[in-house]
């Protein structure tokens, strides 16, 4: 089960090191993008969006179809993000906003119901069988060779755009008027509405933004993963592991944890292929025991 030799060989071989690092990086950046959506929604609205994986799936399928129609991958990524945002805003307005004040179990149930509905809707629209999008035409070019290792240019696009968009949205929440209002409203919705602001619209927009990040992640993953109804579940679980390890509400923590998990996955597949998932959960348990607030999370008061 444990193949220490192979792992050591890989660490000693620049080609393997580069290839596995590139894989670790894209896994990590996808996770970071998904987890920053979870963190944004949790950090501001204090709602755990258990349905986040469904928006990842919606983004992937929307991008798949948009690519089939337009043949333009950049437009398809946009389509994935927009589709997830639209469904996200509807979900927030019609369902989740009604249980903001309810307990966690109620929120979990609403989200789970929504996930099941989405999975079935995908089966009806796209069918239950696996779909593959393939590397988009824009990126069908020879791979880069770095120190003997192979890095597909698409990987760089994926990692770069995921990182950029996640960080941009954090900046938006921190420094824009929209971000300032929505954070104030999360603390004191009544006072913000007394100032003339329609608070529910801002909450819906923030929720939609978080979902758009998941949708974009799905669209970015579509060329390198197979599409299937229910594909959102594993990314949801992994993004929760990322938020727990990184610290609830901490974006730098999520980045650190996402990279950690990405590398655990890529190098784990060389050194301990049967224990990759186990290793991730082990990491989470260790963190929860020794540093419950996560790597970079603030200690919870109260």
């Amino acid at each position: 089960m444990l193949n220490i030799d192979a792992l050591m060989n890989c660490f000693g071989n620049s080609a393997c090191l580069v290839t596995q690092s590139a894989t670790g990086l894209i896994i990590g950046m996808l996770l970071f993008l998904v987890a920053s959506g979870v963190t944004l929604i949790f950090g501001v609205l204090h709602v755990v969006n258990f349905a986040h994986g469904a928006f990842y799936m919606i983004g992937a399928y929307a991008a798949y179809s948009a690519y089939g129609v337009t043949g333009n991958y950049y437009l398809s990524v946009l389509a994935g993000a927009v589709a997830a945002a639209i469904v996200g805003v509807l979900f927030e307005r019609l369902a989740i906003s009604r249980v903001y004040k309810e307990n966690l179990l109620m929120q979990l149930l609403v989200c789970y119901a929504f996930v099941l509905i989405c999975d079935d809707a995908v089966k009806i629209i796209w069918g239950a069988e696996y779909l593959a999008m393939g590397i988009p035409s824009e990126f069908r070019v020879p791979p880069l060779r770095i120190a003997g290792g192979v890095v597909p240019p698409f990987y760089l696009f994926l990692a770069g755009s995921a990182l950029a968009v996640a960080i941009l949205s954090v900046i938006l929440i921190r420094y824009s008027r929209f971000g300032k209002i929505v954070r104030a409203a999360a603390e004191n919705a009544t006072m913000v509405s007394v100032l003339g602001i329609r608070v529910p619209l801002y909450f819906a927009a923030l929720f939609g933004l978080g979902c758009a990040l998941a949708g974009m992640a799905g669209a970015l993953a579509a060329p390198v993963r197979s599409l299937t109804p229910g594909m959102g579940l594993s990314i949801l679980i992994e993004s929760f592991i990322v938020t727990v390890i990184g610290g609830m509400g901490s974006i730098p923590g999520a980045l650190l944890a996402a990279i950690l998990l990405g590398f655990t996955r890529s190098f784990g597949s060389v050194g301990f292929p049967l224990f990759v998932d186990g290793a991730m959960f082990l990491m989470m348990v260790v963190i929860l025991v020794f540093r419950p607030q996560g790597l970079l999370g603030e200690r919870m008061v109260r």
Partner: protein
Amino acid sequence: MSTPQPVLELDRINAFYGASHILFDMSFQVYKGRTLALLGRNGAGKSTTMKAIMGVVPIRSGEIRHEGRRVNGAAPHVMAHRGIGLVPEDRQIFPRHTVDDNLRIAAKPGLSGRADWTLDNIYDAFPILAPMRGRNAGMMSGGEQQLLSMARCLMGNPDLILLDEPSEGLAPIIVQEIGRLIRKLRGTGVTIVIAEQNMHFCLGISEDAVVIDKGQIVYRGTIEDLRGNEEITSRYLAI
């Protein structure tokens, strides 16, 4: 002199918190460009009245008219866009936002696009706040927070301002500063309602007075007449 125009009319309103009845058939008018003192002891219902006007607390019966229009059930943001501003009793500043951001969040044009108050002239009118622009509002003293709360209300360019106990628990120097600001505001023609337990703060700055006790009106008239009305002041007001 022409008869003054009521900007705001409360017509036999009743309000509840859950099952407890708080405001009983309350009626009074607020006149354009004048200042009304809404007086009453602890728990008399002053804050509830202001919250009912703003749409924060629902009324169960009666009618609230603003500029002649029935506004029962209107949400707070709608009332804000009708030109009403509330400075709540516990200030309710955003503690984790800077002073600047507290003000920016509240920035909106008044009715018919009036934009008398901007960030710059707010800091001119509130010189105490100017050096604290970048500080988190939660780090400020109670008096400074009260000033910020008033400044934030003005950023929305309201025509009718509801001030809930602006002098409560503050040092005399800040109370004086707040009195000066209210006088200055009156000069700009806005209508003001000030809730206070103590009549004296309101004496030089308001024309009209309403006294409430246990959610019912016990006096309506000018503040000068109230001042001479020993029976009402000793029975219903804090000394």
